[in-house]
Each structure stands twice: as structure tokens, then as C-alpha cells.
């Protein structure tokens, strides 16, 4: 690990000042950042420990929603009474990720900002445009089992690896972001992560000196909530493909279908056309197939990850079947 200065701000204002320079980074649970610092993928000159700021609260919002503080641990969020009863999708997505030891440290803000698990990104001897812009992408034409099938560019085909944010995208949550001297801005989780384009070094819309203070969930809506995660082993593995769904039925027809997908893109993937297509339909295997056709219309495999295209189709069908009670 490269040497760094360690500082602990005593207020949020102070934290945004300290994290403004390019070479500084905030540290929360440390479960992603320390890992990457050991690999010298991240080499901050200064580490700003935000853990003692009071941002861990989980509280009801005035409009019936829930505000989850940036420092709330994944464990606390998944175990929270209202998350369990009103947003079970979120509890399930968190519990399907990592391990209890990791979730006890992992925070809302850190989980949103966790970096890709692309093997070239985490190995400093390999080319990677995300880690070292302009050095090339090792994964295109290389080992690409974990990689994206939607929204890729010829600079980067990495995936956002997390589960929590996929559930938050389906639930249409908002990320609260603050910077020195400015008032809090709000970004939908659906727009928080970026597509790689020609600047894959930027994972999300956070600017230097910006700190996530929390995430708000809108008031709960009616419908069945499901998180379906497909992975190499049944526990303690990142998603190959995951589907987060809030689906409601009225008089035998689909009346709501809020869907988001993990493991297939540089961000939790949300395609608003799916809801337009599905709402009003009587659920059936044929309808699910049409939704998959639309979702995957521009999907592209890179050899090793070609399997994700049929896998996504089947994971979507299985989730919708489960949500609507249709036998496949």
C-alpha cells in the first residue's frame, strides 16, 4: 500500500473541503477501498475518514418514504423494520451480496461507489482504460466472463458489480449529494452511474469534493417485490445477472412493472420501455419473451460473456413468472 495521510473531519462541511483535492478520497467501511489500495489500484495521497460524521440514520420521510443515511451499514439497512416490510426487494438484494462480515462494514455510500470487479482493472500490470486512461482495454478480446452486454463502448465493457443499487433503481430511489457551500443535490439512482463512453475512468456523476449523504426511497407502492440473483455459487459471489422487480397485477393484467438489471452493464440497467410494453398485458411466456426481445435488442457479447444474453432472457422470464403466478 502506498503511504497516505489520514484525516478525520469533524463536520460534513469540513469533509467536503478535505475531499475536494484530486488526490484525496473519502473512506467509509473500507471494504472496497482498502482492498484496492493494497493492490495499488487506488493510491490516494490523503484518506478522509468520514465514519464519525452522523450520517448513519435511517428515518421516515414526510411523504411516507424512507431516508437511508450514507453511513448506515448494509446490515442495518437490511434488518430495518420498514425496509423488511415495505421494501423487501432492497433487503433481499443486500442480503444476496457479499457476506455478513462485509455487510457489517459496508455502507450505503460505499456500496453505491464500489468499483468494477474486472480482472484487468484490479491488476496493475494489465492495460485498463478505467484505471489508466489511454492504456487500452484488456477485457475486449480477453477474459470477459463478468462483463457487460449492454451500453458498452470500445473503451470499456466493465460492469457495475453491486446488488443494492439494482434494487434501488427498480424502487426509483434518489441519491442525496452535498458539496462545500452548495445545497444538497438529488440524483435518481437510475442516473447516478454512467455508461463508460470514452471516459470509463468516471464510474458515476460524483465530482471531487462531493459526498453522498444518503438515499431516499419513495413511499412504497403496491406490487410483488423480487430480487433474483444468478451467480456461480449459491452464496458469496457477485451476480452474473440479477433482476430487481416490483410488479403489480390488476384484474389479471400487469398494472406495474418496475424492473432493473445487474451484472449486464456499467450501471444498474433500467429500460423504461419495458414497463410501457408490459403494463396492460395479460402475463404469459410470449409476453415475457417480447419484453426480453426489447431489453436485449442491442445486446452484444464479447465471447466469454455471450451466455449472459440468454441468461438475462431466462432470468427476466423467471422473475416475471414468479411475480405474476404464471407457469413457464
Amino acid at each position, binding site marked *: *500500500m502506498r*503511504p*497516505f*495521510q*489520514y*484525516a*478525520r*473531519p469533524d463536520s460534513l462541511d469540513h469533509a467536503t473541503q478535505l475531499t475536494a483535492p484530486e488526490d484525496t478520497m473519502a*473512506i467509509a467501511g*473500507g*471494504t472496497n477501498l*482498502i*482492498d484496492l489500495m*493494497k493492490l495499488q489500484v487506488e493510491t490516494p495521497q*490523503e*484518506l478522509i*475518514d468520514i*465514519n464519525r460524521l452522523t450520517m448513519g440514520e435511517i428515518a421516515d420521510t414526510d411523504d411516507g418514504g424512507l431516508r437511508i443515511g450514507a453511513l448506515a451499514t448494509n*446490515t442495518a439497512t*437490511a*434488518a430495518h423494520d420498514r425496509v*423488511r*416490510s415495505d421494501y*423487501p426487494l432492497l*433487503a*433481499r438484494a443486500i*442480503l*444476496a451480496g*457479499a*457476506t*455478513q*462480515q*462485509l455487510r*457489517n*462494514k459496508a455502507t450505503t455510500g460505499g456500496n453505491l461507489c464500489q468499483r468494477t470487479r474486472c480482472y484487468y482493472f484490479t491488476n496493475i500490470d494489465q492495460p485498463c482504460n478505467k484505471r489508466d486512461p489511454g492504456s487500452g482495454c484488456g477485457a475486449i478480446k480477453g477474459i470477459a466472463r463478468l462483463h457487460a452486454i449492454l451500453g458498452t463502448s470500445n473503451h470499456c465493457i466493465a460492469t457495475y458489480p453491486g446488488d443494492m443499487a439494482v434494487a434501488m433503481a427498480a424502487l426509483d430511489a434518489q441519491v442525496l449529494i452535498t458539496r462545500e457551500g452548495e445545497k444538497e443535490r438529488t440524483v435518481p439512482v437510475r442516473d447516478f452511474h454512467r455508461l463508460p463512453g470514452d471516459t470509463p475512468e468516471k464510474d458515476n456523476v460524483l465530482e471531487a469534493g462531493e459526498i453522498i449523504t444518503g438515499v431516499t426511497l419513495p413511499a412504497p407502492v403496491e406490487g410483488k417485490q423480487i430480487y433474483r440473483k444468478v451467480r456461480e455459487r449459491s*452464496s*458469496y459471489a457477485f451476480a452474473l445477472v440479477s433482476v430487481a422487480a416490483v410488479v403489480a397485477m390488476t384484474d389479471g393484467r400487469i398494472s406495474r412493472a418496475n424492473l432493473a438489471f445487474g451484472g449486464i452493464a456499467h450501471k444498474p440497467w433500467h429500460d423504461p420501455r419495458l414497463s410501457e410494453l408490459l403494463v396492460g398485458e395479460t402475463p404469459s411466456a410470449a409476453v415475457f419473451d417480447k419484453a426480453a426481445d426489447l431489453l436485449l435488442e442491442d445486446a452484444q457479447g464479447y465471447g466469454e460473456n455471450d451466455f449472459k444474453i440468454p441468461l438475462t432472457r431466462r432470468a427476466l422470464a423467471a422473475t416475471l413468472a414468479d411475480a405474476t403466478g404464471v407457469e413457464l
Partner: protein
Amino acid sequence: MMKLEFIVPITINNTAHPLPDDPRTSLLDFLRRDCGLTGTKKGCDHGQCGACTVIVNGQRINSCLSLAVMHDGDSVTTIEGLGTPDAPSPMQKAFLEHDGFQCGYCTPGQICSATAMLQEIANNMPSDASESLDGPIKPTPEEIRERMSGNLCRCGAYANIIAAISEVAEGDAA
């Protein structure tokens, strides 16, 4: 630049220790190298194996992915703090009785993890294996497997590890 003065020490197994000068020191290296508590093991150093599991303020964490300087004021329990050869904790005893190990390298992490895990079940915290999020949660083998998935055993002593944990869990329930 603010200079931090660590006036508050870290408490390990009820003994106060001053924090290290180099902020790079992981909690794991601090325990083993600076405090001489070598019961906690380093397997992967990247959060993937669980050999370094310790209990901090009642919660199990991977000590390899935490910096020691971030723990002033915290209370850490390691395998040495759970019990001694003369006075083992119920979990330590059960691992001995059920042969819950072969080489023993993963064992301190398994025992710390399992000890905290039973408390999580007692607190009705759900897992990925829980059928309902509303509880009550029973320490079934499925629950134990899922909740212990962060502790790998290269020797594959899993069957006996589960037997050991189940015995303590049943004792707790009784």
C-alpha cells in the same frame, strides 16, 4: 492539515492498546504484529476467506479490510478473548468435540464468526436463506451455511463445523 492525536486507545480483549503510527496498518496486522495476538489468521488479505474475522463492538468483521487507526475507542474480541485452553468458550469446546477442523488455519475465524452469528440469529436478523423477512429465525443447517459463507475452509471440514455450531445453537435455544 489536521494532525490526529489518538488519545483514545483501542481495547482488545479488555486490554487497552495504543494505536499504530502508520495509518496503513490493517487491524489484522496490528493484532498479529503489534499486539502479538497471532490467533487471528491472514488467509487472503482481501476480504475473501474470513480467516481474519474478529468481533468489533459485537459485530464480526474482516480485520484485513479495516485500518487500525479507524478503531480508536472500539472494543475488539479475538479468538484469544473468547476463551483459553483451560476455559474454552462453548463454541471453542464444540469445535474440539466435533473435530470442526483439520489443519486449524481457518478455525479462529470460524469460531469468532460463528459466535457473532448466533447472536445475529438471536436478534432475528434475516439472511439470504431466510424464507420470510419477518422471522422468527431458526438456526437450521441452511441458515448456518448461508450465514457462515464468508468463512472458507480449505480442508473442507464444513460438515463438522456445522455440527459444532448446531450444537451450540441448540444449547442456546434450550
